[in-house]
């Protein structure tokens, strides 16, 4: 690989995984960190790598000006945004590409980020390709009569499908993150809710456009992992099931593949559904000219209907479970690393393999180990970690920014994620069993300012293993 220097504009375990991928590729890298993160392993690892300055302290991970200033100062040629922060910010990507000293943005082209970043737009394109999307409006509605007619139709459809308590969601089209959403269970009350949301949207976002869609309740959250290069190659790395989530809709346990009919009886042809949604995802990727790693999020209802939810134009936390069950013919001795492939494609290299070369083996489970109080609504726990031990197994990998050799204060500024564990088994049964063994063998100790012991979600994760891939 030619002289590349990659700025890692993120923190925690993803920063570490990007570093490892860079080392794999033989690229130099630099990391940024804030004052709160100075003890984090991602900083220590970069510092200990060898001669040359590799760490830069910044005030915020969210200020693009600072990131670019560091990039220029350090002579970085590319920026990896990780996930969160700038990963799906098309303006950041655009600025990186269009500035006087351009820097490669490791991710899709900014136009793709922008176009797929809009759920409405994604829905529109998907519809035009015959990809199923959640029934409802595919553009903002401004007229009450139009909205009511659509709501009526949605109620009717649900009744025809035999749904006992049909309902629709009314959303502010300019909203996001759960703001400005209300559920309507009776058509009679629709008009009132519509007006309320419309007023809210006008006040809050200056745009009174409203979206209406069917409210789905009973579904599994399935993802398709895609990897494309800048030369038109589109591949997928199978599916994942991310249904096990905290109350705040944060994923806690993810499994690849998406369903396993060997273990559970589904009321529909699960393999067929998985095949359909990967097919649809690949089609959409081809249509928009997708050119990086990305995730297509789907919901599958109990009667086996899939609906495309949105596209995440970034590398995701749980990317490695897909990598873990994937094999590339002829390269079986090097494990698949999607982050490495993502960097490679962003720098313009060809993938060098096609879908035909990819096959799958076994089941992989990701456990997100977090310092949180599950019984109190997943409230984050703050304090000092004094002991941080996990079983060493050939079938388990652990990623963490928490140093195991000295006490570590969890910064209150960020989510209290402690570690990611990736477990592999030759089938689902073995994977679940190993995950259980791993959790039982983990040991995290610590205390907060009052001297109370650390609270983690290890027990919760163990309990939820029974639900893996169950519908």
């Amino acid at each position, binding site marked *: 690989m030619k002289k590349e220097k990659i700025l890692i504009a993120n923190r925690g375990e993803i920063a570490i995984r990007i570093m490892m991928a860079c080392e794999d590729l033989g690229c130099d890298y630099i990391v940024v960190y804030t004052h709160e993160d100075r003890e984090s392993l991602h900083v220590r690892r970069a510092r200990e790598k060898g001669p040359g300055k590799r760490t830069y302290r910044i005030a915020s991970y969210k200020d693009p*000006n600072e990131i670019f200033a560091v990039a220029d100062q350090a002579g970085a040629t590319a920026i990896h945004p990780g996930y969160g922060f700038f990963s799906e910010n098309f*303006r950041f990507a655009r*600025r990186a590409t*269009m*500035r*006087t000293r351009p820097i490669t943005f490791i991710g899709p082209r900014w*136009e793709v980020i922008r176009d797929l970043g809009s759920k409405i737009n994604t829905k529109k394109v998907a519809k035009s390709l015959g990809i199923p999307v959640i029934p409802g409006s595919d553009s903002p509605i401004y007229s009450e009569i139009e909205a009511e007619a659509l709501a009526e139709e949605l109620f009717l459809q649900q009744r025809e499908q035999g749904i006992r308590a049909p309902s629709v969601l009314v959303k502010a089209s300019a909203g996001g993150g759960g703001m400005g959403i209300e559920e309507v269970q009776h058509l009679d009350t629709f008009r009132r809710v519509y007006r309320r949301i419309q007023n809210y949207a006008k006040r809050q976002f*200056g745009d009174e456009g409203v979206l209406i869609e069917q409210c789905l309740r009973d579904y599994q959250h399935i993802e398709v992992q895609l990897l494309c290069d800048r030369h038109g190659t589109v591949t997928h790395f199978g599916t994942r099931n991310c249904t096990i989530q905290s109350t705040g809709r944060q994923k806690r346990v993810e499994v690849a593949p998406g369903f396993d009919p060997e273990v559970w009886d589904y009321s529909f042809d699960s393999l067929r559904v998985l095949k359909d949604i990967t097919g649809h995802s690949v089609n959409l990727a081809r249509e928009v000219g997708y050119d990086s790693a990305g995730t297509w999020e789907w919901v599958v209802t109990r009667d086996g209907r899939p609906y495309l939810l949105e596209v995440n134009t970034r590398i995701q936390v749980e990317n490695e479970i897909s990598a873990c069950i994937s094999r590339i013919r002829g390269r079986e001795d090097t494990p698949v690393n999607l982050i490495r492939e993502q960097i490679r494609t962003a720098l313009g290299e060809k993938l060098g393999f096609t879908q035909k070369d990819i096959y799958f083996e076994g089941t992989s489970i990701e456990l997100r180990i977090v310092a949180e109080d599950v019984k109190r609504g997943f409230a984050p726990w703050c304090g000092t970690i004094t002991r941080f031990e996990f079983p060493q197994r050939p079938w388990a990998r652990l990623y963490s920014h928490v140093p195991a050799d000295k006490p570590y204060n969890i910064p209150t500024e960020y989510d209290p994620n402690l570690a990611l564990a990736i477990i592999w088994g030759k089938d689902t049964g073995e994977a679940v069993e190993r995950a259980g063994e791993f959790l039982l063998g983990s040991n995290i100790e610590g205390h907060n300012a009052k001297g109370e012991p650390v609270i983690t979600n290890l027990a919760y994760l163990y309990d939820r293993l029974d639900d893996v891939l169950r519908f």
Partner: protein
Amino acid sequence: MTDTLHKHIADSGQFLSQLASRITYLIDIIGDGSWFDLEKLLEEVQQVRNAIFDLPEKELFKRMLMLEDRISILEDRAAREITPARMVNIVRSVQRFTLQDILENVYDSFTELGGEEDCNIDPAIVVARATISRRVKKRIHKHQVMVIGHEKGMGEEYRNGGCAKPWGNDKALRYMKVAETEGIPIHFLIFTPGSYPIEDFPGAAQQIARNIYAMCKLEVPTVSFISEGGSGGAEAIGLADFRLMASHGYYSVISPEGAAAIEGKIREGGKVPRELVEKCARQLKMTARDNLGLGTIDRIVHEPPLGARKDDYDFFRRLRFEMIRATDEVVLRTKSFRTFRAYALKKQIAKDYGSSDTFDVHIPWRLSEKETERLLENRSRKYRSMGQGYTELKKESLIDLHKLRDKTRETITRTYYEIKYGLLKPHKKNVQKVLEEVTGEGAAFLAKITEPVKAAVDFLSGPDGEQRLLSDENQHTSIFSREWEQYVSPLANEDRTVTCPNAAKYGCMDLWVPDLYGEFCGVCPTCGHHFPLEYQWYLQNLFDRGSVKEFNRHIVSGNPLKFEGLDARLNRDMQRTGRRSGIITFKASVLGVKIVVAMLYSNFRSGTVGSAEGEKFLRACDLARTRRRPFLAYIHTTGGIRIQEGTLGVIQMPRCTMAVREYVDSGGLYIVVYDNNSYAGPVASFLGCSPYQVGIRSSRIGFAGPRVIRETTGQDVPPDYHSARNALRRGHIQGIWDRRDFRKNLHDALMTMGGPNLYYK
């Protein structure tokens, strides 16, 4: 002389103090006590006064005589050497007559309304019901009039030097309405250095605008008399059917000191050189004779050589005569009986004030309905044509052609639109089809008539500006121009960041310039602060693509007063902007709705308004009226009236307001949108009178800037004093628009507001 002296022997003291006041008056006028040792002379007078009882009588008389001789010689000399700057000194002298003197001496009896002296909502404005009487062949006829004027109240602090506060002007307006209800003429007596520039409700600018707007169509004869006519303050009660001016008064766009400070770029608190003040006073053409020449006043009332003082009773008699004569003239011009009117007019007007102040005929001042109509027509014509001769057209040889073309077009289009919307509209449903045919034919017909003329003009002057407008804006390229087809500000072509001024308050991150001036439309996405954008952005983004068609490009900003240095500055701005005046007037459409737009923009003399700008505004307004289109005044920036055009600039205030008033009354929709900075004259007249005024976020709107406020009132104002938010809070504007919603909001406004006479209603 001895006779006069003997009369005064009894009271030599009084005589001497009169001499002393004559000297101080001279010092006031010259503005310099060392002029012919005036101060020493004053000392001498004081010495004699102190020694009245010590000096032998003969010696005393001799010295008094000598002193009077010397003073008289000096007075003669001063009278011969009166410069414009000295006129200003005369007007400001404490010995000059004030409104009170006029009320007591010109009118027979008066009753003050709305307060007396310091027990008053604004002691600077005095309103009185007054009786003025004339003698016709030994019979006395009395007229009731409403007198509205400024009281400088020399020495009375609470009068504020005749600077009316906003509520003072509001009081004036209320009593104008009373006079209108009662049908009695109004006499406006103007003694003001300017309005008190505070924004408290009802707001200096807004109230002046309201007054001018009302005076345009006040249904009674109005006469104004100017002694001290300070710009906007004067206009607040100055729009009259007949304008008189004292021969030693001044009527100006700005005080000579103010002009000198601007011209000399004097920093606040710095000393303004006297020569510069004198030069500015001369160049501003502020004297009565200058103004008569410019046509901004109708007649001069002559004063004694050194100006009238509080005891010039002869002057007051003359003023009474002139006030009556002027009112008569206004009234007579409304009379339908032509011969009588001609006869009476001739008789009355030809007669000048001489030894006698009697009149030949009595003319009642009450008007019939028909006459009132004619009064308003006359007033409209008067202001519309005022100063028009000073508007410069592009090429001398083309004036006639343009005029011909404009006139032909005007007549034809008016008839055409009257047929289209006036006559046919009521039967629209039945004759829809016919109408369409008429429209089609009409356009063809119109083209046939105007095309040859237009072609000739184009041949001589190059293609008309319409296409040029779009082509020369499109020259720059942007890094986004391929991605975003619409216009992107050239400001976006820089790879750097800027800091939002609200960063400390709202934690806004630095903005990357291409994002800010491209996608964000110059708006900080965190706090909504609007960074200024060039006017071209609005031309391209506010109106439907390709719909902007500029007109009246041939009306060019000039230098009617030959103000030194203005030509060079105009040339520089013309080269820099490729435009020839500070206003762009054009037809355009907004989401399909056709409108007429007048746009004052910052790059040309800071968007100041002079004759050319006023003329273009007025024509645009009239075009909107005949075509029944909404009229938008988009103020990118205006710095006020162009001071280098003197009162020719000031009269654009009543002129354009007249056009606006007639447009609004005709049932149109007049919307004013302020952006960036809008101050002074235009805001206090044709902009501020709009029923729909809106500020773009982060804009500043007001009467006078913080410096002028500080200098005139001694008050410091907070930095956000003129902000759009505060203007909204005070009720000056009706709303604040985000630049990104401008187009949508404008379209909403077009669809929901306005009178019944819009073409699409």
